[in-house]
């Protein structure tokens, strides 16, 4: 079944880049949706089923950490795997986001292959 992907990043050019990488993964991709911050992401998740969320951390209005907290509090949304895509490679941040429920963490800059591999890993975990 085709996978719906939600890309959450306040940078339009970064969303375009990730969209392009997602298209190159070889995965069966259905709909790719975009959101500029966590609140927009929750609005999308409220009306469409997403199989995977790729989110930045530093965003206005609602950041990636708050988005993860909201998703974890929702019985349905907590089952959706989230991969964090961030410039912050600090050990504290990675541990914190994983503890909040993130299924993967990719640090910018990243090679397209590394994001694709993390997506496949997160989705296999989900569908196992």
């Amino acid at each position, binding site marked *: 079944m085709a996978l719906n992907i939600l890309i959450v990043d*306040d*940078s*339009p*050019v*970064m969303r*375009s*880049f990730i969209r*392009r990488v997602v298209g190159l993964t070889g995965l069966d991709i259905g709909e790719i949706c975009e959101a500029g911050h966590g609140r927009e992401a929750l609005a999308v998740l409220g009306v469409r089923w997403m199989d995977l969320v790729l989110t930045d951390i*530093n965003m*206005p209005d609602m950041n990636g950490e708050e988005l993860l907290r909201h998703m974890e509090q929702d019985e349905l949304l907590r089952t959706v795997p989230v991969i964090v895509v*961030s*410039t*912050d*490679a*600090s*050990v*504290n*941040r990675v541990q*914190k986001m994983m503890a909040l429920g993130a299924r993967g963490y990719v*640090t*910018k*800059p*990243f*090679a397209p292959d590394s994001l694709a591999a993390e997506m496949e890993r997160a989705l296999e975990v989900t569908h196992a």
Partner: protein
Amino acid sequence: MLEPATRIDEQLGSVTRAVLETMFFTEPGGLTTEDSDLALPRLAVMLRFRGSPSGDLSLSVTRAAMAPLAAAFLGEDEVSPTQVDEMACELANMLCGSLVSRLETRMSFDLSSPTLITPEAALAPRAGEVSRQSCELAHGTLTVVLSLDADG
């Protein structure tokens, strides 16, 4: 504990090269502390980081150099001036995040949203400046300046 200045210079150069090669598929030329084409039209971006240390990073790049970088990043033949501006902001964001992650590998930090500033402001000497690196690109020069707060 902060790195010595020469180590920060090395880290800034290394981060700049890694970001350009990995995300923009561009191999920069040699690193220098001099910017050779100040007379050309440029755009500039600054963002602040808060953590341990705190400070700001500014970037100045010739428009002629930024446009092909944006095109390579987006996989498009042509890009709009707005996309070039957004791309410069994202480049600054990635450079700053990568650099601060290397300066302090354990503590997390917060980045402000990158904002466009005048090239003069980006390149002016500042209190707390610890590193300034320029690299040659295909159509101009990219200069990155790192400053740390006095208490950072």
